[in-house]
């Protein structure tokens, strides 16, 4: 089921066509999902536990490659390129990911953490370039003022919310085409959650964001378009406001009204 999405008049930056992911032969965690993601929007993927939303997200940046028993079929087109046929390393530079548990690298300083994407990819930068990237990335997540005096320290003393923003900065530093966020605020307190939600609303001017969330109010608050998944299937997707006020599918309505969760 699809309603007219917010597209900013542009063509999709990411297209999923019949995307399926299975952990064992015959059973599908994600079953033939087809949808478009438009630039400079926030798209929320929501649904009850186990519906396949994280699995779907992780398929986009080929994280399932790490686990040989997982099979992915279908098409993922990112900026015109077929993700499943590309070199996974290149995919992951184009699609940045932020995880549920903040994971700044404990053996690196805050400065080095922001640049970790470059370091891990063996990209050599001049000091001036490095400084620029670090300042810019930390500013865009609103962390610069808070950490500018402690850049050389390891990030473990930062609060959960700050650590997560650092991880976002780290992902943004590589200037990804799309930012994939897997329940980024579910491990954080309400105030940090709020800060990050505001941040995302700012970021969408420059980036395209897909956010998996188990909190439908979060989806309602910040997303332009939404996808509702149930048992691996894409039940309904479209304009968030429309979906929430007038869901076209009975399942969607039941989920949104709390019949099941």
């Amino acid at each position: 089921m699809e309603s007219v999405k917010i597209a900013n008049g542009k063509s999709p930056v990411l297209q999923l066509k019949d995307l399926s992911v299975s952990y064992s032969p015959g059973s599908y965690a994600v079953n033939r999902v087809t949808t478009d993601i438009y630039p400079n929007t926030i798209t929320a993927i929501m649904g009850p536990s186990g519906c396949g939303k994280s699995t779907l997200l992780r398929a986009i940046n080929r994280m399932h490659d790490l686990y040989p028993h997982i099979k992915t079929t279908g098409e993922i087109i990112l900026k015109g390129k077929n993700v499943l046929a590309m070199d996974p390393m290149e995919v992951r530079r184009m699609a940045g990911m932020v995880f549920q548990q903040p994971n700044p690298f404990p053996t690196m300083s805050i400065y080095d953490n922001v640049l970790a994407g470059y370091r891990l990819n063996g990209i050599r930068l001049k000091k001036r370039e490095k400084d620029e990237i670090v300042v810019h990335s930390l500013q865009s997540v609103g962390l610069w003022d808070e950490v500018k005096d402690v850049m050389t320290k390891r990030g473990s003393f930062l609060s959960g919310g700050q650590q997560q923003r650092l991880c976002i900065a780290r992902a943004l530093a590589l200037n990804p085409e799309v930012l994939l966020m897997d329940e980024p605020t579910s491990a954080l307190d309400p105030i940090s959650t709020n800060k990050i939600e505001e941040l995302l609303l700012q970021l969408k001017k420059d980036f395209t964001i897909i956010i998996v969330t188990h909190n439908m109010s979060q989806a309602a608050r910040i997303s332009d378009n939404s996808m509702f998944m149930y048992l691996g299937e894409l039940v309904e997707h479209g304009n968030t406001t429309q979906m929430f006020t007038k869901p076209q599918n009975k399942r969607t309505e039941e989920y949104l009204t709390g019949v099941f969760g």
Partner: protein
Amino acid sequence: MSYYKTTYAGWRKGKDRTAFILVCLFSLIAMFPLFFILWDVVSKGYKNFNLRLFTEITPSSMDAMLARMNGEPIPGGILNGITGTVLIVGMAIFFSVFLGLFIGIYLADNRGKRFAAVVSYLTDLLQGMPSIVIGIIAYAWVVKPLGGYSALAGSVALTVMMLPMIVRSTEETLKMLPAAYKEAGLALGSSYTTVVFRILIPSGFGGIFTGILLAVSRVMGETAPLMLTALGASVVNWKILEPTSAIPLLIWDFYNDPNLVDLIWSSSLFLLIVIFLLNWIAKIVARKWKV
């Protein structure tokens, strides 16, 4: 703002693959010595590996020399070594299990206390002691006062070696048991003593027993401390105050005697079989009795 520089993807993937190959290669090489040693011991030892090995005592150098001159197989076996090992290690098991069990229980139940921390540290200290130094200690404590070498001295040395291992494995096993076991027992009105012996130890039996087996397999092959304490004997000896032989001691004797040297491989084979058997049983017990 983006810095699209070449990321040398091909070069990095090449490095990745090379590193993987090197890791596998070096791991493979690291496994070779085991196979070389086993091959040596088995191929050189199976000839003399017969019933005589277990039933006869070591031949004298003279008899061995005569036999070799006549082209006959060396008479004799390692019976005195086997009985000696049984005696010495047996006594060591007795001492170390008793002590080690209680100390392990103490450490598991008194975690915060200063005294327990000290005991724990000292246990680690004992564990790290070189075996020859333990031999010196047993010499000082038993051989000197008794005026001679003895099986008792040997078992004191092995006890000191086994004790830290048994303390640790008992402590770790008991620590891993859910606190609910102890609490349930006490809640039923049982005494602490009963809870320990009727509930905790039986529940942790797997881990404790494995620890004992591993400690035994470790000390069975020890030579150095026994050289300074039990010395060795050419006859079967069950008297704990007399010098006694042991399998590793015999191997050492054979090694040093050109007439008996052929026996080193069959005795080593025997020793290895026993040690590997103990390790294997320990693994099975550990698996079956998973806490």
